[in-house]
């Protein structure tokens, strides 16, 4: 966010454009801002990754309400979001803050969609490896998705985490999970029929989503 002073457009103004008109072309001032702001570039990459990933969902999942309902269920099932509890009444609505940090929320959602895609493939499998061999898992091969999955480190830096030890944990473990994702992806590409490799890739995506959600929760809400 620190680079926003160099451009005429501010980060939150660009976020407004993304939320109001997600599919339309950006005005020149927004493009200029993107040139210089790493955080907003990460956000743009996240949103693009979500669009790409959602295109790969099965046809019957196209209805937006169902997709979002499913994502919400996944998030709740994983404990990444939850209904506001009595003890969180002091205006600290975690879910609201979660979606107020689009860069992180985008990354988490992209990861969950990718993970859900893997689960979908896993669930279509029969007792043999034939289904997977005929219908290999689609991996996030594009540069945009790669950027989406790796650009969140800047986001962790930007969180208002007051304890440097805790921030160091997030950074170190993010690197660990990224490394695991990279190795699992390689393994799945080399052995498309390998259930275990696919399972570990799914786990790694889930771990990254969980890590980002916790980092954001601790950062934006003060973790307390």
């Amino acid at each position, binding site marked *: 966010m620190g680079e926003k002073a160099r451009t005429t457009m501010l980060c939150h103004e660009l976020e407004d454009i993304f939320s109001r008109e997600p599919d339309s072309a950006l005005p020149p001032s927004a493009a200029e801002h993107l040139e210089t702001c790493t955080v907003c570039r990460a956000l743009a990459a996240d949103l693009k990754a979500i669009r790409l990933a959602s295109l790969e969902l099965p046809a019957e999942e196209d209805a937006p309400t169902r997709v979002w309902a499913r994502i919400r269920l996944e998030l709740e099932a994983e*404990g990444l979001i939850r209904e506001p509890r009595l*003890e969180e009444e002091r205006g600290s609505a975690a879910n609201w803050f979660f979606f107020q940090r689009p860069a992180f929320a985008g990354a988490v959602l992209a990861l969950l969609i990718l993970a859900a895609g893997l689960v979908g493939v896993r669930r279509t499998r029969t007792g043999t*490896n034939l289904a997977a061999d005929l219908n290999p898992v689609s991996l996030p091969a594009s540069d945009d998705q790669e950027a989406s999955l790796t650009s969140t480190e800047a986001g962790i830096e930007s969180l208002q985490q*007051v*304890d*440097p*030890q*805790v921030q160091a*944990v*997030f950074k*170190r*473990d993010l690197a*660990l*999970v990224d490394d*695991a994702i990279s*190795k*699992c992806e390689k*393994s799945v590409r080399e*052995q498309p*029929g*390998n*259930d*275990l*490799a696919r399972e*570990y890739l799914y*786990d*790694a995506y889930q*771990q990254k989503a*969980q*890590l980002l959600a*916790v980092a954001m929760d*601790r950062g934006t809400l*003060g*973790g*307390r």
Partner: protein
Amino acid sequence: MSIMKALSRISGVSLATVGALIFIGAPAQARHFEKHFPVTSKPVITVRNPSGNIQVKAWNKPEVMIATDYASDKLQIASEQAGDRIEVETQIVGQNPSADELKANYVVSVPEEAELQVRTDSGDVNVDSVHGNMTFDTVGANLQLSDVEGYVIIKSIDGSLVCTRCAGSLDATSISGSFQLIQPSMDSVRVQTSSGNILFDGNFLRRGIYILKNYSGTIEVRFSPSDSFDVTANSLYGKVYNEAPVKPDLHGNTRPPRYSNALFGSVNEGNAKVELSSFSGTIKILKRD
């Protein structure tokens, strides 16, 4: 005379300097919070503390006692009670607290059957002889549970667990934390970490299900000759060492994996189910000494 005056002036300055240094270097004034909450049956206690140690122990009084020591006026301790539900929280009320100023150390005494919900980022958490269900949500905090029972859920990023003589069920996930279960008496264990090690040193209960999984690191289980379990051990790129007298699977529903280093079969009657899985780590199934 002038020399004496000079000396006395110097010593006066030195004393003032030393005094100032002592004042600056003195620890911040300790603050203490203590409250007692009467309860009737099984209380549910929620503790949210970003940094510092939390020690929970059981006692036989029908009340919950929460005592907190902290050093900064940038913190305050808030608590509330609604029947048998008690919540306590360390709140940040000052601007830009340092890591040291964030620390608050808790001692919590609870009835044996109490349920616990603990949320913390860093520091150690010790729970002793509490038999209710518990959940832990941590970033880097290390957990030490002794003689606990009930259903234990742990979600951590970097925190490790040492569980000694734990009974009941355990569902634990971490990214880089390690898990050690020593003399457990648990019939349901699901543990997953990415880069941490996992040690299970205890008996597999009949009908028990034990699922231990990591990405790298070591998974080690120790068995006794009388243990009865079906075992599946898979390491995609790592090794599997086995000292168990594994017979072909008595229940016949395990297919040999195509890609990994694997072991599967039954030990004795195969009453319990043990699944060990790693991506590149080492799996060891060892005889207990």
